């Protein structure tokens, strides 16, 4: 990542973090605050991150645009940031006018290659959301006291947290892998996206279960922001192709290569 990209990332992170923290319980948010938040996101240019240069985009390579999608996953708020980024990219690709305003209900009428990019965007959002969940959970077990000591002092809690961290690291690595592969020659980008969706979907299942367990009852309350991430990930993991569909698709490709081709497929993936 060069210096310009680092500045773009930092700016996006600061903006979205501030907005997500100020959003409070989304249901109680005044409409004026929602509109002001959306305007700030629009003004930042972030919504054009997946748009090619010639269509008025930021001119970022797709892999870097997806890095911003991951940041949006980490600082998930009540605005359809990623869906609007996708809708604007696809509108431009389809030769349509890039509509202003939020994309309601996400992009529709996608060509197969657009569906693949949308699926990869979900993978990146989930990786970012899992990072946020790890951070939140680590902080919580340090603050919460039971039996006269922080939860973090119990070995059972430490090991659960270590498993969560391993799943988050794997999810981030799988997202990085797929973003790297769509930019590289000589690999099958669809296979790489399927790998990311299969691995990250599983990390979501294990990771959200641990995060809820370690947060206890408060994490199940509407007022706590944990469920903003976990319920979102439970949707995302099955959007633009369910996890099971993507997993079978990978399996089919691998089985077709047979025993003899298995190792070559692994290295070439």
């Amino acid at each position, binding site marked *: 990542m060069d210096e310009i990209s680092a500045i773009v990332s930092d700016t996006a992170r600061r903006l979205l973090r501030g907005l997500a923290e100020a959003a409070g319980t989304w249901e109680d948010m005044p409409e004026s605050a929602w509109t002001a938040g959306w305007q700030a996101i629009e003004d930042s240019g972030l919504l054009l991150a997946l748009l090619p240069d010639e269509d008025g985009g930021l001119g970022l390579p797709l892999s870097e645009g997806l890095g911003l999608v991951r940041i949006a996953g980490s600082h998930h708020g009540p605005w359809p940031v990623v869906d609007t980024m996708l809708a604007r990219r696809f509108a431009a690709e389809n030769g349509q006018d890039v509509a202003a305003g939020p994309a309601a209900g996400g992009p529709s009428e996608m060509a197969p290659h657009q569906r693949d990019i949308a699926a990869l965007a979900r993978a990146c959002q989930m990786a970012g959301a899992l990072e946020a969940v790890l951070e939140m959970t680590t902080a919580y077990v340090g603050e919460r006291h039971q039996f006269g000591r922080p939860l973090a002092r119990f070995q059972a809690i430490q090991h659960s947290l270590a498993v969560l961290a391993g799943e988050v*690291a794997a999810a981030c690595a799988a997202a990085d892998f797929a973003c790297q592969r769509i930019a590289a020659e000589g690999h099958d980008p669809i296979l790489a996206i399927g790998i990311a969706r299969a691995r990250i979907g599983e990390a979501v299942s294990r990771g959200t279960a641990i995060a809820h367990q370690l947060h206890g009852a408060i994490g199940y309350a509407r007022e706590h922001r944990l469920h903003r991430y976990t319920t979102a990930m439970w949707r995302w993991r099955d959007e633009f192709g369910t996890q099971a569909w993507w997993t079978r698709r990978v*399996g089919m490709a691998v089985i077709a290569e047979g025993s003899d081709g298995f190792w070559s497929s692994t290295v070439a993936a």
Partner: protein
Amino acid sequence: MKTLEFPAPPPRAGDEDLRREVRNFLESRLEGRSPLQRAESWNGFDRQFSRELGQRGWLGMTWPRKYGGHERTAFERYVVMEETLAAGAPVAAHWIADRQSGPTILRYGTEAQKEAILPKIAAGECTFCIGMSEPDAGSDLAATRTRAEPQSDGSWRVNGTKLWTTYAHEAHYMILFCRTSGSPADRHKGTSQMLVDMRATPGVTVSPVLDLMGQHHFNEVHFEDAILPAGSLLGTEGEGWAQVMGELAFERSGPERFLSSIQLLIELIGALQGAGGEGGRNAIGRLFAHLVTLRHMSRGVAALLERGDDASVHAAIVKDLGATFEQELPDIARSLIDEEPDLASTSHFASVLAYTTMAAPAFSLRGGTREILRGIIARQLGVR
């Protein structure tokens, strides 16, 4: 707190010619080796095979030429490691020496030690064993009791017992982790590493400890007033703990930490040809996604080690996830294919399933138990 980033390895490291060369060699050299033999993974022992790898320049690959090395990159070395493992080559005669003993000597050894030993490892002529565990010091390595007492002539007198020492009965050398001062109550302080010539040290007795399959890989190594000559100390006296922790990063992140069950996966895919249905596709897709992600992470650790960065926590994550993946395979295979596991079967699936099922418990013990690894990860998160 920040998520552990695994740096992206280069997508293609300019290593495709090397990969082709290694594959061609292995294909002809391992012709006739049965799937059951291949399933032994890095436990398979063949001195002649190690020598042939050495002759081709595929051992000590990253080391300086003056010590017999070839000054190639960590990624080129990774290609050779993963290709030999995926092919089920018998690598045990050189594996430990090339992976961790050699790098430790290169980093901490005296000029004399480097000149005497590294060229032999690179030639595939030198087998190492690791003297860490003891009867009362398993995961709790700092409880080590084996002691080396300095003598007035500069030599060391060693007493104690090491256990679970893989291939001690074939090894030329051991790197011994022991106490050189203080008592076990001093924990990490007062420990050192020593080079032990396993063939020429009176007072060293190696006795076999058979595993649950009746195979002989483990040993007990007993030291009774064994005298190590002056110049046997490896690195700095009293710095043994720090040296060992660095060594473990080499031991924990390589492709051998997720490829141990690969032969079973290969047999399973064969058995699923034209059968298996949705369940088989789903299972293979999931396993493949794990495998490719683990490989990406493991190559990321190679990138960290190449830069000289501390990779101990990354390595712990790769090993924890890798062992879990390897251990899941037998049950997944059993759930998909109706065949009784049988070591003596002529069905490759049945024999490899039987072997891998029995080998699997060790995957999350050797090189640091799952519990130790999770403790290391938790410490990185700041909760320990």
